[in-house]
């Protein structure tokens, strides 16, 4: 039985193009695989379906080697791949052997100089710990490049049977706990036995370079901050050198840390070389990115649902309602509100929506298209609907009279802003003007959602540190998200553009001027608004929404003096607050 299976294994020939035929022969042997599971000698079934033959007992080894291979290839690329010989590597579906042959080639080509591409700096203090191992023992435990957060432990899916426990596992557990850094990182991709680091060094004859990545992570952060300091002090030569270091150090990291470091390094480089990103007038592109961000993680959904809840409660008895949306984009917030209004006891009110958006480069009327889609939805669910769109470069250009708002006894008005107010801080006087415009609209409720961070301090270094912390948390929360990887990448690009703006731009170009809830509260209070407490319904809905997200145990909803905050573990990231006109006569709720 076993022999038959191995025969089908050895049948196949190298190239990847043929793995479809090999996978069919795998399927024939599938029944045999189940029986082989018990002795742990069979091939991993999940990979086998893809056409890769990896024995279940080899999984940890293969994973480790793949990690090393990626590291080495990543560093080799900087010096050019041309140094690779013409060795042909056969049979990539025999993953273990193939990786071994690739690694051996890199090792022999670079020889003893393998540590050079990674640590080019003459400064030897950057080289933390490099071990050459010639024994079977498990090496310095901190040298595992990947550490697994137990929440994402893939072992749990197929059960213990697929990943045979060894006596080393209890040791591995305690090691893993020690390895948890403050900025968590997850392993790269691979489906193989990430959790089972019952690692054994396989080949005694070959020197292995093991990098102490936890140390490198700390050094990475220090280097980033040092670079920012250099920029602050206008020491551009030093900053330039440090930025390059960051690139090298980032290559040795995995997961969220690497991505964050890469984006910040790029932003710093732009600031140093004064290659500012051109002001993206292409709002349709940023809309697309935001859509992917909407789909990948709960932040925008949280914003919409909590704001809608506040608006719904304010509209409780109104028969005609008017919502003014400061940033309509794709209108994703409004279907849920319209549905809730449709099912309101006593029937739906007449719903009027005014959407404001930036001018489109290709002159298409994006606002009208969104309005039309919403009108269709309204007709489907039986809500009377009216829509108007306004194109404006900046909210400060709006005059309330343009919006044709009807008097309060005819319609009840709500103003909604999701991440649209902070750009106004780039121009002096703009925020005050917009807030007084809002007051002139006489809204029953104003909902504001903003990032919970102070990225608008006067000192660059403070802004940099704040942003580093903030976006590290944000990227960390994205790491656990399931879904198509393209969504994840686009969400990261979306956030990357924000990072670039916060770090590299100045003056009117720097529009990502986030401020904390406390700061916004101060502004709203002095502008003549009173806080409205978001009720327990909003809290419950938000908590339920978060519970639905895979990897959702990291998200936290907090109540903060009547406003709601969504955060990742202990760090709040966005905040929703609701406001009404101070001492208004119709404020009875």
């Amino acid at each position, binding site marked *: 039985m076993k022999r038959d299976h191995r025969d089908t294994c050895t049948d196949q020939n190298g190239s990847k193009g043929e793995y479809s035929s090999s996978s069919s022969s795998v399927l024939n042997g599938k029944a045999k695989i189940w029986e082989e599971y018990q002795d742990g000698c069979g091939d991993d079934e999940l990979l086998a379906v893809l056409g890769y033959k990896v024995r279940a007992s080899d999984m940890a080894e293969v994973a480790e080697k793949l990690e090393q291979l990626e590291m080495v290839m990543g560093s080799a690329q900087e010096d050019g791949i041309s140094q690779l010989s013409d060795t042909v590597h056969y049979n990539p579906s025999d993953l273990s052997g193939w990786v071994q042959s690739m690694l051996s080639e890199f090792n022999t080509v670079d020889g003893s100089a393998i540590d050079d591409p990674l640590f080019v700096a003459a400064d030897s203090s950057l080289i933390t710990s490099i071990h050459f191992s010639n024994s079977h023992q498990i090496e310095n435990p901190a040298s595992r490049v990947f550490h697994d957060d137990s*929440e*994402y*432990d893939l072992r*749990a*899916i197929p059960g213990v049977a697929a990943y045979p426990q060894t006596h080393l596992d209890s040791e591995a557990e305690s090691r893993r706990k020690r390895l948890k850094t403050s900025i968590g990182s997850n392993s790269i991709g691979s489906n193989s036995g990430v959790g089972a680091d019952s690692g054994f060094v396989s080949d005694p004859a070959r020197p292995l370079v093991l990098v102490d990545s936890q140390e490198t992570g700390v050094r990475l952060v220090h280097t980033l901050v040092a670079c920012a300091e250099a920029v602050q002090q206008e020491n551009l030569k030093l900053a330039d050198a440090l930025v390059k270091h960051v690139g090298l150090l980032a290559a040795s990291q995995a997961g969220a840390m690497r991505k964050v470091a890469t984006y910040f390094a790029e932003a710093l480089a732009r600031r140093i070389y004064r290659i500012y990103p051109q002001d993206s007038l292409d709002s349709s592109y940023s809309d697309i990115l935001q859509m992917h961000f*909407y*789909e*990948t993680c*709960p932040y925008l*959904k949280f914003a919409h*649902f909590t704001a809608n809840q506040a608006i719904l409660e304010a509209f409780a008895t109104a028969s005609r309602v008017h919502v003014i949306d400061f940033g309509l984009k*794709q*209108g*994703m917030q409004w*279907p*849920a509100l*319209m*549905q*809730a209004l*449709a*099912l309101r*006891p006593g*029937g739906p009110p007449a719903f009027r929506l005014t959407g404001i958006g930036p001018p489109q480069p290709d002159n298409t009327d994006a606002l009208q298209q969104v309005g039309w*889609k*919403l009108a*269709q*939805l309204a007709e*489907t*669910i*039986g809500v009377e609907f009216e829509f108007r769109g306004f194109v404006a470069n900046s909210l400060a250009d709006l005059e309330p009279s343009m919006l044709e708002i009807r008097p309060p006894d005819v319609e009840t008005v709500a103003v909604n802003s999701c991440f649209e107010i902070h750009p106004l801080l780039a121009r002096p006087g703009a925020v005050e003007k917009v807030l007084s415009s809002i007051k002139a609209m006489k809204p029953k409720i104003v909902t504001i959602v903003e990032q919970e961070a102070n990225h608008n301090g006067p000192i660059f270094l403070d802004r940099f540190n704040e942003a580093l912390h903030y976006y590290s948390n944000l990227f960390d929360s994205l790491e656990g*998200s*399931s*879904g*198509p990887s393209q*969504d994840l990448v686009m969400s990261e690009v979306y956030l990357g553009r924000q990072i670039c703006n916060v770090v590299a731009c100045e003056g009117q170009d720097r529009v990502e001027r986030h401020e904390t809830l406390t700061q916004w509260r101060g502004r709203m209070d002095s502008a003549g608004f009173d806080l409205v407490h978001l009720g327990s*319904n909003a809290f*419950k*809905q938000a908590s*339920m*929404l978060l*519970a*639905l*997200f*895979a*990897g959702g145990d990291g998200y936290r909803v907090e109540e903060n003096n009547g406003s709601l905050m969504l955060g990742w573990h202990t760090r709040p990231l966005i905040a929703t607050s609701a406001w009404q006109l101070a001492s208004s006569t119709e404020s009875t709720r």
Partner: protein
Amino acid sequence: MSYLSHSIQNTMHHQKTPSSEDREKRPKFFINDHIDILVEILKRLDGPSLGVAACVCRLWSTLARNDSLWEHLCFRHVSSPPPSSVRPVVVALGGYKRLYRVCVRPVLSRLSDSDLVRRVWTRDEVQLSLSLFCVDYYERSGRLGGGGGGGDSSASSLMFLCNTVNV
């Protein structure tokens, strides 16, 4: 539940062995002759069982496609019955079967660790499911208008519901 599956098995058994049974004794009860009873039985099944039942034969498949069965399923364990205004909205947005498949079932399974069937819904969970359902419709309508995907593919913003959670 075991009684129901037992009765279903009996029915299947009847269908499979016609001639030998006929000679020995005439079957006194054939479920397909009593559609009202069959519907009553189907009304009490849970989601997966209802899906399985729809594969039994053409008659059962037609019956299971009836949206009111799925309406019962969606709101069976709600503590208070939903208002009458809900039905036209749900039907317009795609029907109860879709509501169950896309929203109710994932929401229930994510939010409760215990048995899917016996759990009692809260109004908030119903409300959340309906909101997500509406978002689903909105995205689908946009996609179709743009010449995109099939009518039955789940909207991407609800992908987070379709993806498996770490068990």
